[in-house]
C-alpha cells in the first residue's frame, strides 16, 4: 500500500512546480533563502493566479451584474465562472448553493446572523468543539447572547482529537447546530466530519464545518460529508485575500433572510417594501471584490491541474518527514498528536518561549507562526499560552523541513538549554 502511495505521489514534479510558479520562494529573508512554513495563515500565490489578477485589472475590469456593455458582461462572466468552479471543486449540488463572502470568518458570521436568528430560540443549544478558531466561536457567542441560545463545548482528548463519546452525550433534541472545524489550525487534527454530521442528523441538528484549513490540502466533497454549511477562504488555497465561500444547502439558503442590505441583493425596492433576490445573490450586497473572485477561479484551476489527491499525498510525505525529525529534537514537545493530521505541526520547547523561537527562526529565514493562533481555548486546554507552528503546503519540500530542524537546533544552542 505504502509503495503504491509513493509511486502515485511521484507523478507530479513538485520541485519543478515550486521553482516555476512561486518566485517568492526564491527570495532571501535576513540574508538567508526563505523557508515559508506559515501556509496555515496564508498560502503563497502562484504566478498563474497573479497573472490572471493582473490581466483582469489591466484589460477586463468593470462592475459586475449591472452593465449592458460588453466589458461588464465579460467581467460578470469571469466572476460567475468561479461559482461553477467552486461547485465542482467541493462537489456541491448547484451553483445556487455557493455564496461569495470575504472569507471563512464572514461565511460563519453570515450563518450565525441569518440562520441563527431564524432558528435559535431560548435554551436551544449550539455545539462547538474545544479546538475551534475564534472565528467559529465568537459569532456564535454573539448570536447566542441575542437569542438566548446556549453554547456547549465538546472536549478534546489528550492527543488532540475530538472526544466523540462526549460529543454523543452532548447531542440532544435541544441541539440546533453543530459547528466544528474540519482541520484544526492549532493542532493539525483532521476531524471525522462525516461521522460528526451523521450523529447531529439523528437529532435533527444542522452542521457547519469550518473548512479553512482543509480545502487547501485535500479533496473535499460537501455532499459526501452531508453538512449543511461549509466555509473556507481563498487566500489559504493559492488565491487572493478578501474572498471566501459559504456552501449552504439550498433548502436552508432559500429560507434564510439576507443579513446585509444594499445593491445587487434586491428584487424590487420601494420605500414601502423591498423584495429580495434569490440565493445566492440575496446574500451578496454591494459591489464585490471582483478580481479576488476571478482569482479564486484561477486558483481552483491551478490546484485541479495538479490534483488535490496528489497535493494531499505530497504534503503527507513532507509533513511525516518533518514530524520524524522534530520528534528527535530534545526538549521539544509536539502540541497535539492526533490520530489523523493535515499540514500543520505545532510544538513547544520546555524552556524557550514560542516568541523567542519564532524570532530566531526568522533571523535564519524560516517563517513560522507563533502565539495562540486565534484558538486560545485549545491552548488553555493544554496549559500553554503560545506555541510555534510550522504549516506546510505542496510547494514545501524535505529541504524546507531540514532547514526548520536546523533552525530549531540553532534556537536551542542560542538559548543554551542543553
Amino acid at each position, binding site marked *: 500500500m505504502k509503495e503504491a502511495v509513493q509511486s502515485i505521489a511521484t507523478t507530479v514534479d513538485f520541485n519543478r512546480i515550486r521553482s516555476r510558479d512561486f518566485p517568492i520562494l526564491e527570495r532571501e529573508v535576513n540574508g538567508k533563502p526563505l523557508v515559508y512554513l506559515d501556509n496555515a495563515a496564508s498560502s503563497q500565490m502562484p504566478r498563474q493566479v497573479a497573472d490572471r489578477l493582473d490581466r483582469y485589472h489591466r484589460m477586463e475590469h468593470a462592475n459586475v451584474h449591472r452593465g449592458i456593455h460588453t466589458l461588464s458582461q465579460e467581467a460578470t462572466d469571469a466572476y460567475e465562472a468561479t461559482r461553477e468552479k467552486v461547485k465542482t471543486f467541493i462537489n456541491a449540488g448547484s451553483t445556487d448553493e455557493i455564496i461569495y463572502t470575504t472569507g471563512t470568518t464572514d461565511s460563519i458570521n453570515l450563518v450565525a446572523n441569518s440562520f441563527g436568528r431564524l432558528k435559535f430560540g431560548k435554551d436551544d443549544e449550539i455545539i462547538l468543539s474545544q479546538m475551534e478558531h475564534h472565528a467559529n466561536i465568537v459569532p456564535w457567542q454573539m448570536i447566542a447572547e441575542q437569542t438566548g441560545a446556549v453554547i456547549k463545548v465538546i472536549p478534546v482528548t489528550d492527543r488532540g482529537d475530538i472526544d466523540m463519546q462526549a460529543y454523543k452525550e452532548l447531542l440532544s433534541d435541544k441541539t440546533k447546530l453543530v459547528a466544528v472545524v474540519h482541520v484544526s489550525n492549532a493542532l493539525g487534527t483532521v476531524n471525522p466530519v462525516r461521522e460528526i454530521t451523521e450523529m447531529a442528523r439523528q437529532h435533527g441538528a444542522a452542521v457547519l464545518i469550518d473548512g479553512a484549513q482543509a480545502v487547501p490540502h485535500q479533496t473535499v466533497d460537501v455532499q459526501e460529508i452531508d453538512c449543511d454549511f461549509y466555509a473556507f477562504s481563498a487566500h489559504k488555497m493559492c488565491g487572493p485575500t478578501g474572498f471566501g465561500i459559504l456552501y449552504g444547502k439550498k433548502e436552508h439558503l432559500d429560507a434564510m433572510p439576507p443579513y446585509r442590505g444594499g445593491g445587487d441583493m434586491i428584487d424590487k425596492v420601494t420605500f414601502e417594501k423591498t423584495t429580495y433576490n434569490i440565493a445566492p445573490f440575496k446574500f451578496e450586497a454591494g459591489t464585490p471584490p471582483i478580481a479576488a473572485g476571478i482569482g479564486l477561479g484561477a486558483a481552483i484551476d491551478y490546484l485541479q491541474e495538479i490534483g488535490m489527491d496528489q497535493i494531499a499525498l505530497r504534503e503527507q510525505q513532507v509533513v511525516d518527514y518533518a514530524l520524524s525529525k522534530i520528534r528527535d529534537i530534545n526538549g521539544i514537545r509536539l502540541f497535539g498528536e492526533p490520530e489523523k493530521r493535515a499540514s500543520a505541526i505545532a510544538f513547544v520547547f520546555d524552556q*524557550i518561549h514560542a*516568541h*523567542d523561537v519564532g*524570532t*530566531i527562526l526568522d*533571523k535564519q529565514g524560516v517563517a513560522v507562526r507563533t*502565539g495562540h493562533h486565534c484558538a486560545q481555548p485549545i491552548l488553555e486546554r493544554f496549559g500553554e*499560552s503560545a506555541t510555534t507552528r510550522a504549516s506546510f503546503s505542496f510547494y514545501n519540500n524535505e529541504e524546507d523541513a531540514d532547514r526548520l530542524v536546523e533552525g530549531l537546533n540553532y534556537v536551542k544552542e542560542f*538559548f543554551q538549554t542543553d
Partner: protein
Amino acid sequence: MLYFLSYRTMDIHEKQERIIKEFKVLGDWQERYKHIIKLGQKLDPLEEKHKKDENLVRGCQSQVWLIAELQDGKVVFKADSDAAITKGLVALMVRFYSGEDPDTIIVTKPEFIERIGMQEHLSPTRSNGLVSMVKQMKIYAMVYKSKLQQQAS
C-alpha cells in the same frame, strides 16, 4: 563642567548614548540578541503578586507585565516578560525611562532602539508589544503628571 556631570545622575539623553555605545562593540545580530537576552536576565524580577492580568500590556504575543510608581516626582517602572528577547527589550525600556520625570517620559522617543539595530521590534504592527509597552509607560507618565499638577494647585 565635567566635574559637575560626574556628580549628578545621567539624564535620559546620556542614558541613550550609553546604551548605543554599549551595543556598538557588538558585531552580528547573534551578539546583539545575546546581549539583549543577558540584559533581560539581569532585570530585577517582578514579584509574582504583580504578575496579574491588570498589569499585562495588551497586544503582546508574549506576556509583558508593567507597573509604575511615583517617587519624589520621578516615575519608577518595574516590568517582566515570559519571553527572553522581549524581556531584554523590556529591561532596556525600564532602564531608559525609569527614574525620569513625567514630562521627560512623555516627550522622549526611544531612538536608541533603531541605533542598536532593534527597530524591527518597534514597528507599530509588530505584535511583540514593545510599542504597546512604550505607550503604556507614557500613559503612566501622563497620569502622574496630572496628579502632580493637582497636588501643586
